[in-house]
């Protein structure tokens, strides 16, 4: 298990005073939660193996309230954990015993919808799917589509730079976020970007996106919305080996076709989802591909025809074209219920989130399989094949003593493999606490030191999510920055 820092005894002892002070900063009578029963839902997120009871929970409604709370916490030295909907699979919203949680669940106003400039501006407690729901009557949509989109908030999406199945064509959150209003750790209110493109000055908007609540708190967001395509339909393929499936994906992309999504499932994933969702997936293949294209009906037919022609060279064992919206839904039904399906066949699972260069897929799958064998775990793999984002699901049973720890270790080995193959530790879930201690696999000490010093520019007292993203060991935390040889020489 990843270690959490010792709570600050002085802060714990001052809990009543702190919560009382916070109540003075929030207008709504129910804006500060201090009763243990009501705090309970905030103890954990979707990484349920970790739980911490925070000092209390603050639910502001306005930017001014967030600024007042941040300023107070900075001056009083209280740690802050920002929280969206708590759907993080990496422990991104995991509290600390000596921290307050600032939740965005009451910040749900839509401030502006502007089709001429293709933007929507809103408070960040709005859910991801909620954005599309607002603009879909006018045939617009918000592109990033994480699996948790029904529940997860824009605040959390910005914090973790969330992706989704369709980011092959449309990009991830950072590519669709045009501006924010943000409260700094000292309580200043700043604006980055807006309805115009790109930043004046350094790209601080790019920096805070995916910063996992360690640099500030977003209180308003301007998002790019796009006109919906006329239609979209997938084609489903089964292949006898994952290597051939990978080659087929390469050939399609090389031809100049960029599908909107290319999803891959291996045999265990196919079997688990088929049993659960009855999507009609072939059970005798090693690899399944769902390839979706967009356009008018004729364009889709032509494009799928091109894909079929290319795929034929790779002798697929199974092929099914969706000819209608209903058939499309049936094909996607299995994939979209995959995590739920795995949950049915295994008491617990860890959803890993590495990225690999796409050409390494066969090697990655082989070695993941050996790694899991060596720990005695079953594994199912789901893969965003176009962009290399791999989700191995490690099946385990938390009720067996020691098994959670071993499953975590197994996951760590898989992520180290992703780095070794030229990829990275996390493609879209974030580092959180889950992968914090693995950061040394991807970054040198100098690179980690630089990132920590960057945090201190935004958060000089190291109060925002200080237990996440960077290993606690060597964390300069509240000490001065470590001087490099050049600095020491120059200082002499």
């Amino acid at each position, binding site marked *: 298990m990843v270690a959490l820092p010792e709570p600050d005894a002085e802060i714990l002892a001052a809990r009543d005073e702190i919560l009382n002070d916070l109540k003075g900063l929030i207008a709504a009578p129910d804006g500060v939660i201090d009763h243990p029963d009501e705090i309970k839902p905030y103890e954990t997120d979707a990484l349920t193996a970790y739980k911490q009871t925070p000092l209390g929970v603050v639910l502001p409604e306005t930017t001014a309230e967030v600024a007042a709370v941040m300023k107070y916490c900075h001056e009083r030295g209280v740690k802050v954990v920002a929280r969206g909907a708590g759907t993080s699979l990496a422990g991104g919203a995991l509290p600390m015993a000596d921290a307050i949680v600032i939740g965005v669940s009451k910040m749900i106003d839509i401030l502006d919808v*502007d089709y*001429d*400039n293709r*933007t929507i501006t809103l408070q960040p407690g709005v859910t991801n799917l909620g954005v599309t729901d607002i603009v879909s009557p006018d045939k617009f949509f918000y592109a990033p589509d994480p699996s948790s989109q029904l529940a997860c908030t824009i605040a959390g999406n910005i914090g973790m730079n969330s992706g989704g199945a369709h980011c092959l064509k449309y990009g991830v959150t*950072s*590519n669709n976020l045009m501006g924010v209003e943000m409260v*700094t750790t000292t309580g*200043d209110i*700043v604006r*980055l970007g*807006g*309805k*115009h*493109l*790109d930043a*004046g*000055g*350094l*790209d*601080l908007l*790019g*920096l805070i*996106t*995916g*910063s996992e609540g360690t640099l500030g708190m977003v209180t308003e967001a301007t998002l790019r919305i796009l*006109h919906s395509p006329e239609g979209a339909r997938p084609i489903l393929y089964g292949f006898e080996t994952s290597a051939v499936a990978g080659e087929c994906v*390469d050939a399609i*992309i090389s031809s*100049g076709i*960029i599908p909107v999504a290319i999803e891959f499932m291996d045999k265990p994933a196919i079997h688990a989802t088929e049993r659960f969702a009855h999507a009609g997936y072939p059970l005798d293949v090693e690899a399944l591909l769902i390839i979706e294209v967009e356009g*008018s009906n004729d*364009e889709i037919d*032509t*494009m799928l025809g091109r894909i079929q022609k290319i795929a034929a060279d790779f002798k697929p064992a199974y092929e099914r074209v969706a000819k209608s919206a209903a058939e499309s839904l049936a094909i996607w039904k299995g994939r979209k219920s995959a995590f739920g399906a795995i949950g049915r066949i295994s008491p617990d699972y860890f959803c890993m989130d590495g*990225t690999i*260069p796409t*050409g390494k897929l066969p090697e990655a799958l082989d070695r993941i399989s050996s790694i899991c064998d060596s720990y005695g775990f079953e594994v199912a793999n789901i893969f965003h094949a176009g*962009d*290399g984002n791999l989700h191995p699901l490690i099946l385990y049973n938390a009720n067996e003593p020691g098994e959670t720890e071993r499953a975590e270790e197994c996951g760590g080995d898989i992520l180290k493999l992703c780095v070794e193959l*030229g*990829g*990275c530790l*996390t*493609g879209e879930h*974030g580092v959180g606490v889950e992968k914090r201690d693995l*950061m040394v696999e*991807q970054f040198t000490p*100098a690179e980690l030191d*630089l*990132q920590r*010093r*960057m*945090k201190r*520019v935004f958060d000089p007292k190291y109060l925002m999510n200080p237990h996440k*993203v960077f290993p606690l060991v060597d964390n300069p935390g509240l000490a001065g920055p470590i001087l*490099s040889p*050049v*600095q020491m*020489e*120059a200082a002499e």
Partner: protein
Amino acid sequence: MTAAVLKPGTVADVQDAIRDAVMDRVPLAIEGGGGLSGLGRPMQTERTLKLDGLTGVVEYSPSELYATFRAGETLADARAALAEKRQRLPFDPPDLTGLYGDAGGLATMGGVVAAALSGPSRVAVGAARDYVVGVGFVDGQGQALKGGGRVMKNVTGYDLCKLTTGAFGTLGAITDATFKVLPFANSEVTLLAHGLDDAAAQAMMSAAFKSPFEPVGAAHLPATAAAAIGGVGGAGAVTALRLEGFPDSLDYRTNAIRSFLPAGLELTELEAEPSAAFWEGVRDVAPFQAPDPRALWRISTAPTQGPKLVAEIAQSLEVDVFYDWAGGLIWLAVAGDAPNAGADVIRPLITAQGGHGTLMRADQSVRAAVEVFEPLAAPLLQLTQGLKRTFDPFNALNAGHMYAAV
């Protein structure tokens, strides 16, 4: 004062040069091809670190859609290397060196990153910042560091790729960069409307993006700018929409999109070749290239606000403009006699309207007297200066090139 020019051939050379600069307390000006040395706040430096010797393709995997170039690789060579595999940089970076003199053609891949150069397709597919997936750089203490990697989905740690993109070498000397690349479009067509005023043109461009037909470029050139690019037939203003795809799909979209555009437009088409040539002119800012001596601004605002902003500026200054990014990107040339290149008029209007402006070209004395980059609110300037100190604590790299102490 004789200016020394250091030309490193390896990353280790870059590290040595920066360590020496720190020890000698002689700050460095960092250059690629040197073609953008007229951009930014003027620097008082005796040493130039010129990275145009760091050439070459480090790694290119067409099937995995990424390519790594050393910083001094020219944009032209990088494009050619990708074109061999029928691939491209989707954000279509401009070569802006033609704005400053000579024949242009000096743009390097390091410069594309440092200056965050994005072309007309930016409005549809994203900017340089969205396609830089990895960056290698040497910080102000001579440490060779990296951000990102070679995969396009990566949320591991802070996004140093985005931060170094557009930092104009103030945070580190970029030594290599990895880009997400994509295949060429199968074909393209440009739909041209003739004779529209700025406001009507902007309305047409917004209308095009409110359709499902995915234009990948939208620009409006008033008569003077249109004449400078040429090849668009006849005199007068042109408003251009670019579409890409397979030929059958292009035929369909080029027709279907018309029903979304305002009625009564006089529309013509540019086939693939003239279309590509036209957009190259827009991309590389052909209407205002040297020897045009006028001060030049690049302004980003909400597309619908573009014509209004220009009209307000034109009340006080004599200007020539053209619009890219559906009206949201304004290239604005100011007649020579305007004091401070018009900054006293232009800056407050940008602030009032929302957006940012860069004084891309002006006499050195003007660039020393007024802010070249969009002035920052106090807390943001503080964060910016803090980041500068983090990356470059001894102010060794492009000191004061963007802002005071940045």
